């Protein structure tokens, strides 16, 4: 990853896009981890989710943010692969399930040991717009090996209306970002998924643009 390119990208593209074209209502900003090792466990509705999280960080810290992203999608063509790896700074992950867990998370462990902040989407996909899909258990296996890693639940809302999966037209909407308390240590993957799900539920209710009728 090229740190300077990432700062320029955040300053000239991400911030004007997220803060002026879209606009954010932010809840719990002080809970955002500024230092790693940490995992931001966010719901996923749009490519804008990552952009919204980038916009919340000071430029001096953006290089710490490493979105964990599907290799099959982001490395599909050379241009996108270059951009994803060098500007966004993704950690590519193999979704096909053929790799063993240790190998699967190898780059994630390296990043955490380096004090980075991983952005993970436990739904595994953007899915249907503005709906939270079933959460996957990857985060549990990731933090089991690195118990000093804080897991911070983050819910974004509205970004799936602004730019949903499969649409090219970006429509401006003010969106919500709600940051929750770090999850307590857990002993099973089921426990982690349950805690995370509960936290998402609460954070979603605190979103200004969320309506019960949306679900």
């Amino acid at each position, binding site marked *: 990853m090229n740190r300077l390119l990432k700062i320029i990208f955040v300053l000239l593209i991400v911030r004007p896009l997220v803060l002026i074209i879209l*606009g954010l*209502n*932010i809840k719990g900003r002080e809970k955002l981890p500024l230092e790693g090792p940490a995992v931001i466990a966010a719901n996923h509705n749009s490519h804008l989710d990552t952009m919204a999280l980038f916009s919340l960080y000071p430029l001096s810290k953006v290089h710490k943010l490493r979105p964990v992203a599907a290799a099959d999608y982001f490395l599909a063509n050379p241009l996108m692969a270059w951009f994803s790896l060098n500007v966004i700074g993704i950690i590519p992950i193999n979704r096909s399930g053929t790799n063993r867990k240790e190998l699967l998370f190898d780059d994630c462990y390296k990043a955490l040991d380096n004090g980075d902040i991983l952005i993970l989407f436990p739904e595994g996909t953007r899915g249907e*717009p*503005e709906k939270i899909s079933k959460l996957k258990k990857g985060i549990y296996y990731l933090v089991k090996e690195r118990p000093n890693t804080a897991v911070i639940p983050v819910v974004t809302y*509205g970004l799936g*209306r602004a730019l*949903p999966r499969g*649409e090219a*037209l970006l*429509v*401006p*909407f*003010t*969106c919500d970002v709600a940051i929750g308390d770090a999850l307590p240590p857990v002993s099973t993957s089921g426990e982690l998924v349950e805690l995370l799900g509960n936290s998402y539920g609460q954070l979603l209710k605190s979103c*200004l*643009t969320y*309506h019960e*009728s*949306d679900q």
Partner: protein
Amino acid sequence: MFNIPDNSLTAMLAVLVVLVIATLIQFYLRKTRPDKDYRELTLRITSWWWIIGLLFLFLAMGTTASIIFFAFISFLALKEFISIVPIRQADRNAAFWAYLSIPFQYYWVAAGWYGMFIIFIPVYLFLLIPMRMVLKGETDGFIKSAGTLHWAAMLTVFSVSHVAYLLVLPDKNTLAGGIGLVLFLLFMTQFNDVSQYVWGKLLGKHKIIPKVSPNKTWQGFLGGMLTITLVAALVAPYLTPMNRIEGLIGGLLISISGFFGDVVISAVKRDLNIKDSGSLIPGHGGILDRMDSLIYTGPLFFHYIYYLHY
């Protein structure tokens, strides 16, 4: 750049003096009563500096810059409105068309094309939004979405663009210019909010519409009305082509319509179970929270003065 007519310049300086005094009072309060929490007040005043600073900067830069400024305000307000109301995923394209109406509407303003300015959103956009929606083909909730989107554009684009149109009206009071009309409208609208609040705090007893806005009382409403009517009569000849009597009625109009703008947006928020419409302006809430009264006073004051003098 910076050729502001004399009376308008004086009015702008007067507003800045008021703001400086408010800031000094706030510093004094924070110094003498460190036990109390004045953070909200500080935020509000800081935001006022931003709002007034930006407004005056763009007004000073000339008509075109000011029109772009108001177009941007419309964009922010429309975005805020359609983000808090429930609309369907299928309405994205129609919402995009509502956004597209902004550059058109403000172009009519800049060109001084009154006929188009006055019918574009009430007629053309009114017909276009359901047209775009019907092409999308989602009929479930169609009526509600068509109504919501058009209403949103009327409130945030059509209404607000009337403030900008004041700038392109011919100069009838050369000492104040179009800026004078804008300052008069914005100042009276804001001062009405403040005086209704202050009179309500001092004497408020009988609630007007407790289900919508429990803080609105007859005493506040009438006190504010009296204050604004008098102040408007005094100020009108300096900033507008109106004489004292016309100014008096203008003040009355702003006071009553400002009240309704305020409670209409309150009703919207109550319907959605939210307190503020957004978090864009620290200490104030969203942009609609700040502009609620202007949505009503803008078009009504415009047509009053247009009928009298243009």
